[in-house]
């Protein structure tokens, strides 16, 4: 039960991260996305790789990414994901929202600190 609760908090942001990775790296499969995420975040994100697939499905439903089947490095069948036009637009919008949100939160938290906590 509690596992699901923790995931909820990250849900929206994981989607955003995946979009960003696909935008910067182009077409990738799930493993690649996981590795890239691990690389960039410096392994600070404590999460299960499997949840990436849930994020990918959600993005698929929203028509922000599209898929093709291909062959992976180890000659196995793998699905490759890439951004759609709508996905690129959504990425820009959601990244901007995230920026605004984090700066507002930052400002509020800064004022709380000023009172000598």
């Amino acid at each position: 039960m509690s596992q699901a609760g923790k995931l909820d908090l990250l849900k929206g942001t994981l989607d955003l991260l995946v979009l960003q990775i696909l935008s910067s790296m182009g077409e990738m499969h799930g493993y690649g996305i996981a590795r890239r995420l691990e690389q960039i975040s410096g392994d600070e994100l404590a999460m299960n790789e499997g949840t990436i697939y849930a994020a990918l499905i959600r993005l698929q439903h929203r028509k922000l990414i599209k898929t093709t089947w291909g062959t992976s490095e180890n000659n196995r069948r793998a699905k490759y994901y890439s951004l759609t036009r709508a996905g690129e637009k959504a990425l820009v919008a959601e990244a901007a929202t995230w920026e605004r949100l984090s700066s507002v939160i930052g400002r509020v938290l800064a004022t709380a600190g000023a009172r000598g906590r």
Partner: protein
Amino acid sequence: MTRLEEALSRVLAVFRRSRLDRDFEDELATHVALLTEQNMRQGMSRSEARRRAALKMGGLTQTRDFHREARGLPRLEHIVQAGVHAWRSWSHAKAVAFFASAALVVGIGSTTAIYSVVNAVMLKPLPYPDGDRFVAVFRGNLQNPQFYSALRSEDTERLQVRHRSFDAFGWFRGAGKNMMIAGQPYYVSGLAVTVPLVQAIGVPPAIGRWFDDETGVVLSNGLWQRLGGNPDILGQTVTLDGQTYSVNGVMPTSFRLPVPGMTGAGLGTDVWIPLDPRERAGAAYFAYGRLRPGVTMGMADDDLRRVAADIVAEDGPSRANFTARLVPLRETVSRQVRPTLGLLLGAAGLLFLITCANEAGLLLARSVSRAQETALRVALGAGTGRLIVHYLAESLLVCLAGAAGGVLLSVTLTPTIVSMAEGFVPRADEIAVDWSVLAFAFAAAVVAGVLSSLAPLWQALRTRPADILGDGVRTSASRRNRGASHSLIIAEIALAFVLLAAGSVLVAHVRALSRLSPGFDADGVLSFAVSIPGHVAADPDQRIPLQRRLVDAIDAIPGVEDAAFAQLLPMKGCCWPANVIPDNGRVASNPSSRTSLMAVSEGYFRTMRIPLKSGQLFREAPAIDESGPIPVVVSESLVKLYWPDQNPLGAFGHFDRPDGPRFTVVGVVADVKNAGLDNESVPEIYRPAAGSRIETMRFVVRSSRADTSLIADVRRHIQNLDPTQPVHDVELMHAVVQKTMTLERTVSLMTAFFAGAALLLAMFGVYSVVSYSVRQRTVEIGMRMALGATHRTVFSMVVGSGLKLAAVGVVIGGVAANAAVSYHGSVFRLGDSDYAPYAYSTAIIAVVVFAASFLPAWRATLMSPLVAMRNRL
């Protein structure tokens, strides 16, 4: 738009489940393989590499779960899954499932059957376009708001001209006719309707069209079928009471113009003939209007009152109390049966609740025996939501099956109810299983499902897995469980008691009614009607000899002791109103009291064996004596009304108005129950038939012979007199009296049926609870027996536990029953009932509970103490 697209993809994903599952397996396998290879490159063994890879994924099963949840409609899939599980788990307990559904079939079926009647009679809009805008206009009495009666045509004419609320208005009256078609006489019941009204009703004939002048008539579908059902009938001439008309059209089946006050569906109309608006036939007209759009009932009511006040101003003080009243047409049609239907619906509802309680008990028992499974589920993380869905699905599955069976049951039950209440159910042919009824059955199933899953659900939510998985079912299936199932049984018994008590009261009431004397001797009397055309009835020189010939012809039939006729049969609707103004100036103290007028032939009192109390009966005069006062015979209640402290014999008075026809009282007879067996007699005044313009003579013939041969002779003798004269409405007087109790009898039978079903269910419930508790207390019983308790002690202990439950149930039920009976007693004027019904019901319940506890108690005594004590559940 994206929301919609997303929803659509989710729905599609549900359908492509297996394909998507396979695809994801491939994807997942690839990912895990890549991870494994990476790990192996770092030096781990293959199996270690694989394990680490799975860990990094976060668990393969969980990944698959998240993927599936993100992909489809998880809620829906849970529900479907719950449904499939429920089906599977019931298939392991087919007997229980069958019994539960059977009980629900009875519970839901009875309620649905009554609802389908209620729906057609009260809820569905009338089958005319804009049916809900139609209202019926009645004559009212300013002093008595409950008074509704027919209008005079002078009034309807003026109403029509002066109203401001209707966009369609017309009036009609009953008009029975002797019809000659193809040489055969028939008696047909008809309605004479003003032309604008039929046009406004908006229901066109199935073939042909409505009449637009005085020469056309329209036939009912039923009559048309009886005459051969040939479309060539259009344009054919038909003779009604000697007048020729041509057939303009035939109505579709089930069309009728409801006649307010007459609930008899059997009074279906055969023909509609045009009514001349200038006709003046007294106060016999009913008017309908269609409210103009935007006009409310209140506005129209005020409007008509205003017109009525104008009429009173114009006509003078003789019409002082006259006013006009409105009732929505749909209501007038159902007014008389409404309380009865309410009663039946209530009784069926009680049965439904009992079925739910029964079902809940069953589910509770099942959940106890599956407590371990439930504990496991909870331990494995099933949330409240999942549990609720799970129990609901199980319960709903059985309830929906029960509802399906219930609909079928109601299809068979409803016609039975309607035929029992024959003639008293209006709009009977509109009763059918339509969408509304199906929706009701479905809703009932859902309610039943929710109600009955409450108990086991509540239990499951309070389960602590550790308790059950550790010690086993025995300890935790303890006080709490027993409390729940005991409460259910007590509830069942209480409800069953209410039904039983109500049923007993009704049955006793019907029994008492049938023992009441109607005031005349109905046994051995056959009644039938002979109708003559209006113009013949109006002419004394034609009608009096005709009446004499008819009576003589019937008297001549061998086996006939007495024969007579009257204008109305007693107890077949009341009454012809009379205004009596005695010379002594007395007026009725109660302005709403009425007096009944009966025009009877000379032999009437003798034929009906109505006892003469004083004075003498009038003798048939050879001709009307225009000069002298009319000799009348009065009933005892009329004497109490107008001559309470003087001898009425020889008193004089006037009919209708102070200067109306003069009468003198020659005799006093006993009261006849003309307003029904359980009502006060309406004071009655009898006058000789010769002086009255009677169109329909209701004959009563006393004879010892069976009726079919007698009526054949009657027809023959009358045909000899006049081959064109039909005889109609043949009935045994005994049956007429019985018919007045039809509604009561129907309700009492139905309630008894419900009570019987309730008892059966309660019996089963008691049986399961008692046998369960015996099983629970096996060890205790074994110990008692080992310590010296006899068989009888054990037996009485077990039976006693059952009876204790029954006692609580009876007490609760008694309180509820008292309230219910006194509330509904007003419907049938039951009066103060004594305690006999309650005593009977208690005794019946005690017997039933004893019988139900018998088997488990007996089995308890058969237990060997040693085995019992070693028993572990």
